[in-house]
């Protein structure tokens, strides 16, 4: 029988990248700068809390929205940290990572023919979740001349008929770029003018190094425009627990909860237990990890620039996004050759959109020793 796959799904997934990933995963003794997660293990107090919750028999479903205790912790935390007011009962949903939040948000708001503004380069799932929901992506291309930032003018000009929402991720995977409060205020202005809903993925918020992170929802008058996504993966090194949250207008959160209750039911209870502990007692561990990332960031940016791979200083996350244009190679060729010749893995820019060609993503969530060795190997590769 000829099985027919959904047209939308068939169109997805850049096959070249997948082949490259398979190559990396099957190779031994690789120094990897290609990883999108912390190199720290989840802090012990969080792991210990999860272990004891299992011992106590916390193995059941939780409420669809997530445990009330966790939702209260989150709203309390957001109030204290950012002055944000959310009602834990109506405006919060616990998700299986921010990835689920992105998908839910799109499915909750998109009708056929709706368009969504998506910056480029951007995290790989943004385009697909819009398309899976039946929407159309309108890319907002950025490059090094704008510092990989979208501008209010660009958003305004892209707001043609049918544009319903804007997705944004800051600090950004893959560029590490973030926005200051002033820049966000300017973006907020055009968002309000055009009546957009913004899906704001701020999962790297705690890893902002040179200024204080400002949630878009905390800008005056923006709360009703923002679906605020965040999670525990990056700040607390909890990627494998798959735990995120959504805060937003009641109407949207309700709609997202509807989908979530049918497709997911609830996030895992051990992840939620760990998350409660993270918010209660995880701050110091998080600060320690942040300090370490900040040091490595300086090291890697300096080293790459010295090698002639021009590289801006990222504001946050744990990625740098150097240009490899000086080598004359495509990002895919560069990544493949570097892997084969020097066993260093990184992600070719093209994975994050066509406008990221000529760049590669390097993750500095790797030990200092590894980074040093990787730089030495890249140097060897370039000298050839």
């Amino acid at each position, binding site marked *: 029988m000829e099985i027919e796959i959904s047209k939308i799904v068939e169109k997805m997934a850049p096959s070249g990248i997948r082949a490259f990933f398979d190559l990396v995963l099957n190779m031994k003794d690789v120094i*990897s700068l290609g990883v999108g997660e912390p190199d720290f293990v989840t802090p012990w107090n969080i792991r210990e809390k999860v272990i004891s919750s299992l011992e106590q028999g916390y193995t059941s479903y939780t409420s669809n929205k997530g445990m009330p205790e966790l939702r209260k912790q989150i709203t309390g935390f957001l109030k204290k940290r950012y002055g944000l007011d959310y009602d834990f009962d109506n405006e919060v949903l616990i998700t299986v990572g921010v990835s689920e939040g992105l998908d839910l948000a799109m499915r909750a708001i998109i009708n056929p023919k709706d368009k969504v503004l998506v910056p480029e380069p951007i995290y790989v799932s943004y385009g697909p979740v819009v398309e899976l929901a039946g929407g159309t992506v309108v890319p907002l291309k950025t490059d090094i001349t704008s510092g990989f930032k979208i501008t209010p003018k660009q958003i305004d000009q892209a707001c043609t008929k049918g544009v319903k929402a804007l997705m944004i991720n800051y600090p950004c995977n893959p560029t590490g770029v973030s926005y200051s409060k002033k820049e966000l205020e300017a973006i907020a202005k055009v968002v309000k003018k055009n009546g957009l809903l913004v899906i704001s993925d701020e999962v790297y918020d705690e890893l902002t190094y040179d200024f204080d992170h400002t949630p878009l929802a905390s800008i005056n008058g923006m709360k009703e425009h923002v679906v605020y996504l965040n999670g525990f993966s990056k700040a607390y090194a909890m990627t494998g627990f798959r735990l995120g949250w959504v805060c937003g207008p009641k109407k949207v959160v309700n709609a997202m909860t509807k989908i979530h209750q049918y497709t997911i039911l609830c996030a895992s209870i051990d992840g939620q237990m760990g998350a409660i502990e993270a918010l209660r007692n995880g701050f110091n561990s998080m600060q320690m990890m942040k300090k370490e990332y900040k040091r490595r960031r300086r090291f890697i940016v300096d080293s790459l620039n010295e090698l002639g791979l021009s590289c801006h200083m990222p504001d946050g996350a744990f990625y740098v996004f150097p240009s490899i244009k000086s080598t004359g190679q495509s990002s895919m060729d560069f990544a493949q050759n570097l892997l084969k010749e020097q066993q260093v893995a990184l992600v070719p820019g093209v994975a994050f959109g066509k406008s990221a060609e000529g760049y590669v993503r390097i993750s500095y969530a790797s030990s200092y020793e590894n980074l040093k060795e990787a730089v030495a190997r890249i140097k060897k590769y370039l000298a050839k």
Partner: protein
Amino acid sequence: MDDILEILSNDSRISPEEIAKLTGKSVADIKKAIKKYEKSGIIVKYKTIINHDLARDAGSFVRALIEVSVSPQKDVGFEYIAERIYSFPEVTSCYLVSGTYDLLVVVEGENIQTVSNFISSKLSPMENVRSTATHFLLKKYKEDGQVLKNTLSGKRLNISY
């Protein structure tokens, strides 16, 4: 803790050039700061943590933690007796502590006999030492913040978005 001290406390062999890269300061500033720390005694010494269990060498000493109760003396308190004790080369650490005893003394020796001899012939008979309780150390799990076994690594995939 100061950034430079924190980096050095984790890796004393790191070069000033590397510290400069990690902190964003100039190499000259780093060298100057380290000199200052060394001079003022903030940096006492650069040491190596060795796992003697693995080395199985002459360095695999017997170690004992000794709780020592002493009578403090007029004017000098615990200082005099502490100095008398910590001046022995066998003593690797010596702390004044609160609680049911006064000094926590760490003693190292080649074997149980040498450590016992030190305690019975030097430490216990000392004037002002009222009593001792000796705990021979059986296994070191963690020292100076460092877990003394090869921790598992490489559980992450080599590549992910």
